[in-house]
């Protein structure tokens, strides 16, 4: 077989060491896989909300694993206990590992205390996708919203995470914003810890 060469064959995945994470996957391969994921889910559901929920669930599974792996690999086994800490973890570390760059911006919502937004000029998953008019406000970024939700939920910061298109003047494609709305208990605990 080509490429087997000097590779040490492990009998069980538990014996293999955790990879250092320097591997890259081709964008076209990922885009193909993601488009198949969306198309497959489209055949299984009747309405858009259900489709969004399925992409969300798929992302949630990724988020749960990414959180554990990155905290072990990149952060030297230190957990995040504060709100700003976990948000900047998502905004930089998670984004860097998943998309190769940090997110464009992290903002705090002005109307509500519990809302934060991570914005991206063009989400990687949406780059080769266009939404037909009859699907309304559907956004395949629901997958990324699911990833963020998986990370936050498993770290102990339950939140409702959604992806929205925000039109910008002068730009043909709208900006994508991941809106994070934390549960009430998170804010209470955060207030208690700040004292």
């Amino acid at each position, binding site marked *: 077989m080509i490429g087997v060469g000097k590779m040490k064959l492990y009998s069980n995945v538990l014996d293999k060491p955790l990879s250092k994470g320097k591997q890259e996957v081709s964008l076209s391969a990922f885009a193909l896989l993601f488009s198949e994921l969306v198309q497959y889910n489209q055949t299984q559901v009747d309405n858009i909300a259900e489709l969004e929920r399925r992409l969300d669930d798929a992302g949630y599974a990724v988020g749960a694993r990414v959180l554990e792996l990155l905290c072990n690999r990149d952060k030297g086994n230190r957990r995040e*206990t504060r709100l700003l800490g976990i948000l900047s973890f998502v905004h930089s570390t998670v984004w860097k590992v998943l998309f190769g760059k940090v997110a464009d911006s992290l903002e705090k919502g002005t109307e509500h205390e519990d809302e934060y937004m991570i914005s991206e000029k063009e989400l990687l998953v949406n780059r080769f996708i266009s939404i037909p008019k009859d699907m309304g406000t559907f956004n395949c970024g629901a997958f990324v919203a699911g990833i963020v939700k998986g990370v936050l939920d498993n770290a102990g910061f339950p939140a409702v995470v959604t992806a929205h298109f925000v039109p910008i003047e002068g730009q043909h494609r709208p900006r994508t914003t991941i809106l994070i709305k934390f549960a009430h208990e998170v804010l209470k605990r955060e207030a208690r810890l700040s004292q």
Partner: protein
Amino acid sequence: MANTACFIIVGRNDIPIYEAEVGSAAKREDAAQLHQFILHAALDVVQDLAWTTSAMFLKSVDRFNDLVVSVYVTAGHTRLMLLHDSRNEDGIKSFFQEVHELYIKILLNPLYLPGSRVTSTHFDTKVRALARKYL
């Protein structure tokens, strides 16, 4: 070398996903249930303590007679809890770190549902080998 040691991995929803008696002494029949009871009782203390520090290893959080409960909390709030009577903190810390790596490898399996029981016999063998090595 610890004479009694009970090791439990508790998931986020407070349901144990893995348990093992890893001590080297002969066990009484009711010892196993008592050990698990003590570990579950320590969960409340762990919950409060976990939010006060960003470290993962929480050292000893509770005592029962001469048995000590040591806890290691992962990023996803999975608790690795060990009930033991030894004082070898460094050994326990290394044990926790190695089991943490094993747990991550199990978790990375896309077919593994986070929070469900770990049924891999290979995982069991490795944990027991680590316990013999470090405890």
